[in-house]
């Protein structure tokens, strides 16, 4: 059998318990995690079947309804890599976000910012052979939430990736540069300072489409394969 093995979580990862994010207090385990070896279960995954599970790419979130949504049109582009800087090809990125006013198309979102009938805020892109992806959307707004007095979430886009294996699953959030809400956000701050910048996209004039959409770069790095005592160096 193959001896694929993925590197462990690095120090960028947030803890499960982060009391400033109040919902973690009753929803995080008290017992330490039990370390187990990566068996065939963990090193396999639905990498080759996402299209049968979820369907084809939906890469333009501004063209899903009768008219265009309100908001600043933006393009997000980047690559999905592993920690060895190898591209992760043909992997799915699921995308969701609120609208330009900071409102989600969701029954539980009770903030009274307007709903945009022309914006759902859900999409899906597939990486190419170089691990590259690109999608078009509108810039999401900031919104208040009940975590603590006067808490506001910075503008963010949720991204969900399967990667090649059960072990490489990732759900993250993309933030925007120069957003003063990031440094006072309980969710972004669960990530240690030195790694928080990994979640902040860069404005990029070359990614910007003239007369159409501002462009941002955002690379996503999944756990990489590591050598194990069972395998000889290759690649």
């Amino acid at each position, binding site marked *: 059998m193959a001896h694929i093995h993925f590197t462990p979580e690095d120090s960028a990862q947030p803890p499960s318990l982060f009391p400033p994010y109040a919902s973690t207090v009753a929803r995080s385990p008290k017992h330490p995690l039990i370390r187990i070896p990566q068996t065939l279960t963990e090193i396999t*995954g639905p990498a*080759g079947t996402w299209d049968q599970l979820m369907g084809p790419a939906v890469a333009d979130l501004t063209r899903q309804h009768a008219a265009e949504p309100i908001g600043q049109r933006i393009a997000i582009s980047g690559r999905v890599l592993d920690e060895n800087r190898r591209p992760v090809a043909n992997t799915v990125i699921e995308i969701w976000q609120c609208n330009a006013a900071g409102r989600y198309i969701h029954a539980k979102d009770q903030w009274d910012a307007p709903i945009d009938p022309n914006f759902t805020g859900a999409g899906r892109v597939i990486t190419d052979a170089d691990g590259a992806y690109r999608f078009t959307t509108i810039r999401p707004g900031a919104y208040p939430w009940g975590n603590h007095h006067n808490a506001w979430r910075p503008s963010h886009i949720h991204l969900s990736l399967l990667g090649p294996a059960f072990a490489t699953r990732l759900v993250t959030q993309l933030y925007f540069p120069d957003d003063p809400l990031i440094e006072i956000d309980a969710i972004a701050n669960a990530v240690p300072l030195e790694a928080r910048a990994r979640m902040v996209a860069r404005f990029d004039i070359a990614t910007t489409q003239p007369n159409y959409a501002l462009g941002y770069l955002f690379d996503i790095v999944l756990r990489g394969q590591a050598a194990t005592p069972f395998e000889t160096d290759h690649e």
Partner: protein
Amino acid sequence: MSNANPLGREQPAPRHDNQAPETFGQTPWQTVGPFFHYALPWKGGADLLGASDLGARPDLFPPAHDLLHATTPRPPIAGEAIEIRGHVLDAAGAPVIDAMIEIWQANATGRYASPADPRTDLPLTEGFRGFGRSATSATGEYVFKTIRPGRVPGPGNTLQAPHIAIGVFGRGLLKRLITRLYFAGDPANTDDPILDLVPPPRRHTLIAHQANGHWQFDIHLQGKSETVFFDI
């Protein structure tokens, strides 16, 4: 990465962001939050047999915004059809109504529908992908319909007992929690190499029990019966 200034002027100080070389490394996990239902769980995502719309929460957003997923018809799936149900519960035993469960499992012969499973001598099951997603309901319950998986190899020359890998996501979960479901009464449980790593008093949290025609597997995020979660 392109950092060109179209005005041809020098760049300001380097930016500490996603593209800065010194920040390269694993992208950090963040919570799915409470508002993922119109994007992640899809109709039929929790029915690995392809016979129902199980898994989604279409009650949480308007039908006009149900854009991403379509149930695909598939042939009958070989194996012992089973239903798995459970509640996701917090420290106080309160149901977690905005969680999402993912499962990953082998088919009835113990083969994963994955290019990383090298055992091509074992047959794949047409239409069975082994991956499922279920949002929890308004009462914090998830449901999957699937087949009972076969045994797969473990470390060294061991063989694992039939099991299903589980990922737990939700509001208040900054990163996925990982656990496993085993089947009560399976004789292979006694020498499973992973169960063997779990202190005996806590092993029961990983064992599903038969009840009213389904397998019951509650997930306690915290509390007296806290489920065992793994670091993989």
